[in-house]
């Protein structure tokens, strides 16, 4: 979506809707976690009051089935971030990737 403010307003409106179907919101979260599980970044959690000091990136083997859907471009990225931009149709994703040097 070109207009980021418009997207953010739409995202908040979608998440805020009183009658929001919980199945939909669970599916969005699940799509995010599926992508994380296929990727290179491990989530961490910190206890209350402890700030995160640094980012920790795990280098691993990219799931070939996942990447085959994206023209077999796996293996060249050192890191990527994803978010289901198509919140209404949450199968759509935006990728930000860094090429390994």
């Amino acid at each position, binding site marked *: 979506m070109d207009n980021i403010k418009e997207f953010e307003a739409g995202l908040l409106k979608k998440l805020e809707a009183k009658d929001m179907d919980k199945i939909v919101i669970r599916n969005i979260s*699940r799509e995010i*976690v599926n992508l994380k599980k296929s990727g290179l970044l*491990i989530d961490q959690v910190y206890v209350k009051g402890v700030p995160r*000091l640094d980012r920790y990136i*795990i280098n691993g083997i990219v799931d070939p089935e996942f990447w085959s859907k994206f023209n077999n471009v796996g293996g060249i990225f050192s890191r990527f*971030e*994803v*978010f289901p931009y198509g919140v209404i149709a949450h199968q759509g994703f935006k990728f930000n990737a860094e090429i390994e040097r």
Partner: protein
Amino acid sequence: MMNEHFTKGSSACAAPFRTIQLHPTRRCNLCCKHCYSSSSPLLKESLDLTALKTFLKYAYDQGFNNISLSGGEPLLYKDLEALLRFTKELGYNNTMATNGMLLGGARNRSLLQYLDLVAVSVDGPPQLHDYIRGQQGAFEKMQQGLQILKELNKPFGLIHTVTPESWKELIWLGAFAADAGAKLLQLHPLELFGRARQELAQWANDDLHLHRTYILANYLSSKYQGRMVIQADLLHRDYLQSFPQVVNGFARSCSNKDRLAQVIDNIVIDETGAITPFAYGFDPQLSIGTLHDFDDTLFDRYLAHNAAKIEAMMEQTLAHVFENKDQDIINWNEVWVYNSRNPLQVSA
């Protein structure tokens, strides 16, 4: 096979830092509604610096490498500069969580040189921040603190306690943090512990709120990639099931289970000198000891007596989380602390 490198017992080590969370005093210039340590201006007790130094030397030799100062307001600890200088010389990373309102004085500006990261608490836009902090003008004073950090070129982040009243402000908060020059925005869901249990019981986060926070945090992470780290202290149940070693030090094949610092990523020292594993509020019956009565066998003795019990508790807690299909998004540390005090009943 998918994720074969990250399954239980993998070589992935989840914690690069082994943290000692220090609460040298619970004295504070504020009396925040969500304060898990129930800190306030009325509390006076503080840690003895000599005893603390002796323990921190021992803990460093045992593998701990990160100091995380909390409180109370750490800047009110009279020996803070001497403490930070000592830990920095030993080799620790020094971090500090602060309300940011007391950074203007010469002493406090000076001690920033010993800190690797300053994390300033922000509870939302001015009105919500001041309400939580119980002081009109708290937001403005905090902003002045951010300006000082920026002027001194000191790396800083913002820590936000997410409540059902604040999740919809997360996009605003991301922009506020980025504009202020923060390198980190950390989102920690409200835990009903300490004063929060009395003051904010009606603000408990349910699964829907945690989903909203999880989704927005991932959006912000994507939006600010390369400019600011977004850390959400939440895990999806499916993720935790695939990577239990993120929270379970006993499940890491690279862990030496005879070394406390390799199976317990975080220990807490409060203003009385009590040493607690994992997190503030963890069952005191599983306390590691005190600063005032320890020797060089403390960690070894603790593991010999408690490791098997803690590992079993950890596995029971994880199994319970995995079985509960009604709760997708997990505030792991809240669950873990709660279960330490209210052990799960295991059927025969």
